[in-house]
Every structure is written in C-alpha cells, then in structure tokens.
C-alpha cells in the first residue's frame, strides 16, 4: 500500500487508469525547483491510441508555474489542465483533425498516493477518470 500524501511532488510517477471507460496511461513529472516548478503530464488514450501532452499543467495566472514554497506544496490537487494532442514522439499535432483536452481537476488520494481521481471537461460536460500508480511511489 502506498504511503500518505506529503507534498504535491508525490504526484510524480507513472500510472495506468481508466479515462471515461477507456484504458489509459499517465505520466506526471515536475521540472524546475528554484522559485517555481512546472508540472508536466503525458497522457495516452490506449483505446483510441491518442497521445496528449500538457507541458505546463496549471491554468493559473502564470501557466503551470507555481511557487514551490508552502502552502502550495501542501495542495494535493491540480486543475484547469490543457493538453496538446501529440504524436508518439511528443511532437505537437496541428490541424483540424487534431485537438486537445481539458482536465478540470486531478486529485491525488491523501491516504494512499498510489491513487488519482479526476474530472475532464469536453463540450460542456464532465467525464470521470481514475488512475493507479505503476511501481514504487517517490521517496517522501
């Protein structure tokens, strides 16, 4: 069983999950650390074989860049995440046949950081998602 939540960095890792009923993979990583940090998400819809990348998952005044100091690190939820559609190598796909995705909220479970739950938004409707960590959680 995974340990309890300590900081937002606990979100780092590889996950497998279910995205509105479709199997999927998710990777969360953090870049930086001096004053601000950027949260990056890579998402693979396995059933549709579509890839998405959120280079700076945030949506606040400064996209994706949060102060590292307390209290932000206490939060266990990120939100308003905008994804680009990318190819399997991570190159952004442009054009009318390609789109993005918008996640309203993503929460790591505070009693066991092996779990994530969230809500995506499309066309004015909300859709569910849930994930389970693959491998060991980050060191506390």
């Amino acid at each position, binding site marked *: 069983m995974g340990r309890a939540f300590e900081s937002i960095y606990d979100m780092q890792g590889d996950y497998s999950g*279910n995205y509105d009923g479709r199997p999927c993979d998710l990777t969360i990583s953090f870049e930086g650390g001096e004053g601000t940090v950027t949260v990056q998400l890579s998402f693979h819809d396995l059933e549709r074989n579509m890839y998405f990348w959120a280079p700076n998952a945030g949506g606040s005044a400064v996209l994706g860049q949060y102060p590292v100091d307390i209290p932000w690190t206490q939060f266990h939820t990120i939100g308003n995440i905008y994804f680009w559609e990318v190819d399997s190598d991570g190159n952004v796909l442009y054009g009318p046949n390609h789109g993005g995705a918008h996640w309203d909220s993503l929460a790591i*479970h505070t009693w066991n950081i092996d779990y994530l739950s*969230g809500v995506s938004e499309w066309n004015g*409707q909300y*859709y*569910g998602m849930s994930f389970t960590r693959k491998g060991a959680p980050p060191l506390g």
Partner: protein
Amino acid sequence: MTQFANAEDFVGEYVGVYDGRQASLTISRVKETDTLQILFKDVDRNQEYEGLYSVPLGSDIHTLGPINLYDTHDANNAIYWSILNLHTWDINYLSGLSFWTTQPIFMPPTGNLEDTGWEMEYGWAWNWLFGISFARRIPATPVVNP
C-alpha cells in the same frame, strides 16, 4: 465492457478507494421513482453514509452532484460529493471528487462571496477536493439484442 445508456446505469454495487481509504458504494433505485439511494461505506474508518439523489433515470445524464451524504449514526455529520461521474465507455467505473472546506459556506443570495464580507472577517477558507474511484463489484455485461 458496457457503454452508458441512461442514468439507471448508476444502479449497482461498487468497491473502491475514497481519498486512499478502502470504500464501498451501493446505488439503488427507490421503487418507481426517479430517485437514487446512495449508501457509502468508508471501510477503513468504519463509517457509513447515505443520501438520496433525484435524476431522470431514463435520461442521458452520466454526472451526478452535488450529493449530500449523511452519517447513518449521526445526522449532524455529513460529507459532500461535488461530482460523481459514471464512465460512459464502460459503466463498470465510477469516479469523482469529494469537497471539504475549513469554513462554513455562507453563500449570499447574489451568489457572490464578496457580498458576504466573510473573507475579511474570517480570512480565506481552504477548500479541498478529495478523489473518489470505484469499480463495479460484479461487472455489467453488455446487453445483446436478439
């Protein structure tokens, strides 16, 4: 897998994780009504909550909320789920978010929190969202048309 058809698909028994704690959920239809009875058990804390939610069961609504659930042993103790989504491509999955705030919510008639002035008096509240994930205990089987 079974795709979503209508809101009656919420009915079922589920096991899952509630903010990292083991949990179970039973959703049943109150006889001949458009009301769902929701019974939620926080297994790790040995707490049980129940509530009712009205939704047209023949509709294509796959999102419920907000849902108030009351402690079956203490009606003054309640939890609040802001959203609960049935996954539309496979109704064996449910997920959502629970809401908790450090301050009581004093929503004025205008709907604008600034009209209350409460943030000046009490300081900003911390609002927290907690994850909810469930899977159906006995997977639904696709309906095969003759």
